[in-house]
């Protein structure tokens, strides 16, 4: 061990590290440490000349171990291990010492930062002689893909992958795919009809031989690893045999329970207990709502009109949920968003004052297939003479969601246009903080709406009230706001107030992300691997994200991201094998007493009991290197490669030696 030659490479990372840590001092100090043959500093170690330092030292100085003191291993460990490998050194003989995220970025005092950098580096210098060369494990890749969520993001990703010949299973929680986009009337700024551009894709997906559509289903359990996931999907009982249902809709016409608030129409319209959510639904199949169906909820529906109305006899009250197991190589999460609950902002009276509606409700009201047949009317059936649209409801608000929801300015402009188109005499007001019209042709659309006569008032509404202070306000709503450009407080009478509510993470985004084994950002949306360079990957290899589950975005961005996720998946599942990290655990059968403790604890079912040897053994391809068995064993038998006890203790000794 004493003859090991360690090379130490310390990165300035521009001023990220060099601005705080005295790199020169650390370099001089490192050169004096045990086994260190050479210590070098460089402005950007990750650059080609920086990497060359390591490669050359391996070749010319015969370095046998290396440590790079730079950023987090999640950032550049692969870069430097590749450099070591190119230089002829086993990549697992190179360690990272994180002196950026763990030191320079989080330490105020330069002297303390320099001392801490030495400590972090010392830990690695002490452990390096104990490192063992390891070889990556190569495992086969399943070529099939799972897409979770059937909105525009999931649809787009599935179609893209299918076009390359891959088999895709798309799981959607609701009875039909289509997501939020299917509810919209027009799309900004081009004013294409949302249905016209979405339904061809939905229909294509439904007919695609490479795509298995599992609507009204939810993923319950995921195990495995990149290239080899096993997924359990619960197919919820529709109480309708979808193989013989033709989607004719006769059952929903016949059903006696007709006043169930339609989810698709945002509760503004009604559906029956047995229903097809909307005319273009894919799959076009009926579903029984078990909470509303008299037979299923109360056990008594004398007439059972749906049964007699159904020609093919598809109704099956005995149907049960079914759990289906799938094997896939990669997963795309496209689980979307939920509209922020506007009732929380009590000042605006949503749920208390008639004619205060949410943006999604307005989408349905303005939609020709919606509950009013596309007529823009108030609750009393009359056309509004004045409509006020409040921006940033729940968004850009420290009390609720601090972030900008990115789409509300633009959809509000679209609403104004639709109102002006339907009702040219109606006054429309948009109360905004800032107009954020950032996309292609967006600013031009804003300009167009100004020309159409919409009143843009810069100010956040203080409240919506029905207290009238003048004859013009009697019997109407009044929006109170500061007009920050005029410097006055205004009372704007209105017959309809639209709350442009922000986009929120799905209520169960956190639980879902845990099922799949990745995380959420502080704002609740799925966390990408890198905000700029890996926006569609997650920390779990083989799982990608697309659309609003990552962060609010408009349709063009969602579609682009879906394509990027599909490309990421293809780069993986198009191969026959994938290399996985060898830092997994192993069990010495001679030492194992066969107590079974680790077998039950392993979260990945990667340990099995070998009766012949009376010992536990690790299934290498399934082990993810989490370390649970290592810490659980009473006899200290399982050991994790790359994280051996002796290596960890050496690190601790090193950290304490400075």
């Amino acid at each position, binding site marked *: 061990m004493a003859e090991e030659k360690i090379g130490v490479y310390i990165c300035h990372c521009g001023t990220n590290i060099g601005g705080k840590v005295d790199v020169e001092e650390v370099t001089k100090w490192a050169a004096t440490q045990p086994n260190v043959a050479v210590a070098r500093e460089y402005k950007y170690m990750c650059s080609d000349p920086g990497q060359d330092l390591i490669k050359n030292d391996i070749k010319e100085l015969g370095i046998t171990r290396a440590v790079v003191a730079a950023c987090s291993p999640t950032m550049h460990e692969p870069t430097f291990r590749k450099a070591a490998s190119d230089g002829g050194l086993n990549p697992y003989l190179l360690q990272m010492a994180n002196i950026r995220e763990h030191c320079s970025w989080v330490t105020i005092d330069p002297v303390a930062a320099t001392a801490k950098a030495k400590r972090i580096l010392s830990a690695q210098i002490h452990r390096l002689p104990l490192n063992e060369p390891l070889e990556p494990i190569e495992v086969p890749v399943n070529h099939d893909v799972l897409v979770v969520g059937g909105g525009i993001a999931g649809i787009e990703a599935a179609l893209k992958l299918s076009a390359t010949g891959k088999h895709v299973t798309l799981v959607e929680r609701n009875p039909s795919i289509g997501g939020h986009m299917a509810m919209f009337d027009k799309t900004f700024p081009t004013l294409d009809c949302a249905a016209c551009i979405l339904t061809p894709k939905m229909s294509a997906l439904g007919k695609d031989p490479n795509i298995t559509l599992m609507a009204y289903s939810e993923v319950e359990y995921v195990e495995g690893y990149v290239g080899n996931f096993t997924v359990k999907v619960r197919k919820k009982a529709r109480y309708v045999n979808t193989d013989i249902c033709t989607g004719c809709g006769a059952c929903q016409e016949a059903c006696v329970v007709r006043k169930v608030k339609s989810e698709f129409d945002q509760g503004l319209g009604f559906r029956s207990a047995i229903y097809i959510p909307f005319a273009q639904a894919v799959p076009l199949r009926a579903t029984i709502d078990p909470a509303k169906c008299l037979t299923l909820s109360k056990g008594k529906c004398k007439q059972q009109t749906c049964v007699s109305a159904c020609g093919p006899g598809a109704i099956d009250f005995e149907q049960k949920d079914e759990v289906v197991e799938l094997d896939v190589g990669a997963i795309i999460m496209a689980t979307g968003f939920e509209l922020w609950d506007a009732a929380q902002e*009590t000042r605006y009276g949503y749920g208390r004052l008639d004619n205060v509606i949410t943006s999604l409700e307005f989408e349905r009201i303005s939609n020709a297939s919606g509950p009013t047949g596309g007529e823009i009317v108030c609750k009393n059936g009359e056309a509004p003479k004045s409509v006020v649209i409040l921006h940033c409801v729940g968004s850009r608000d420290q009390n609720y969601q601090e972030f900008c929801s990115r789409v509300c300015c633009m959809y509000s402009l679209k609403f104004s246009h639709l109102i002006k188109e339907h009702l040219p005499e109606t006054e429309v007001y948009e109360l905004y903080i800032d107009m954020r019209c950032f996309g292609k042709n967006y600013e031009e659309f804003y300009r167009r709406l100004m020309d159409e006569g919409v009143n843009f008032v810069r100010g956040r509404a203080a409240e919506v009230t029905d207290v009238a202070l003048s004859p013009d306000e009697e019997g109407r709503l009044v929006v109170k706001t500061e007009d920050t450009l005029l410097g006055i407080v205004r009372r704007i009478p209105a017959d309809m107030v639209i709350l442009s509510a922000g986009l929120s993470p799905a209520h169960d985004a956190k639980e879902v992300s845990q099922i799949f084994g990745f995380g959420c950002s502080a704002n609740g949306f799925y966390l990408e691997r890198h905000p700029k360079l890996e926006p569609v990957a997650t920390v779990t290899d083989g799982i990608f994200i697309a659309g609003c589950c990552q962060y609010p975005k408009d349709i063009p961005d969602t579609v682009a991201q879906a394509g990027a996720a599909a490309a990421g998946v293809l780069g993986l599942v198009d191969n026959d094998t994938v290399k996985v990290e060898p830092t997994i655990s192993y069990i010495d059968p001679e030492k194992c007493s066969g107590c079974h403790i680790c077998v039950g604890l392993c979260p990945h079912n990667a340990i099995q009991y070998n009766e012949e040897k009376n010992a536990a053994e690790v299934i290498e391809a399934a082990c993810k290197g989490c370390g649970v068995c290592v810490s659980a064993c009473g006899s200290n038998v399982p050991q994790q490669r790359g994280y051996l006890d002796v290596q960890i203790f050496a690190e601790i000794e090193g950290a304490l030696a400075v």
Partner: protein
Amino acid sequence: MRYLYYPGCSAEATGKAYDISTRALMAKLGVELIELDDWNCCGATSYFSVRELDSFAIAARNLSIAQAQGDEDLVAICNACYTTLSKTNRYMAESDEVFKAVNGALGVVGRSYDGKKPVRHIMDVLINDVGLDAVADKVTRRLTGVKVAPYYGCQYSRPMGTFDDTEFPTTMDSLFKALGAEVVDYPSKLKCCGGLMMMTKEEGALRMCHELLKTAADKNADVIVAACPLCEMNLEAYQPRVNSTFGTNFKIPVMYFTQLAGLAFGVEPKKLAIDLQLVSCDDVLAAIPA
């Protein structure tokens, strides 16, 4: 149930009826109120706007006495007292600087304060400690048919919203519903009454009172119930001035919520100081079924 009780300055003058009716109501409900020893002004309104730190110190003196006097929570009846005392706790917890300055000031009079005495609004006690079920059980004269406009006032739940929604509180609504009254939808419930502006810029304050009175009249309220002495005074005492300014003819009874609630529990009007009200409450008294 025992509480330390902080009446506040108004309780000895314009808001006397609030103090008297609170004591009578709480006695009827079996809640013991122990008046805070040697209390002083809470530090409200003018202090806060002009010399914030002085205001914290004045409030903290009361809180420090309360801490020494007993383990019970300190209860305030006035919205401004409640907010000022709570705010002092919050600022002392959030700012070392305020904590040190306040204790420096208290040190001069040989006191200290850790910023941790719980401060409660009397409504919070009624709703959450006594409880609406217990309240409903003890009603002897249900307020059936009495149309009540619950007026919370601006500092009832703002800025902290500790026991009710910050921007649209409903606790007083539920109290009077439990007492059998017909609670009218009163969307101006949290609007400012004009406060001390009545002294400095009367026309502005009168406009604000006008809005509050007009809304109550539009909603056909028989009575406005208030939870703050200043709100109560502005709405009641300035009705003639509002009428002459805006050409209206309001004669709307304004009561402390403790007065009307006291009637529902069978406390005699005299013990609730209803005779001190400026706008006659006779119609309200007559409207309550025997």
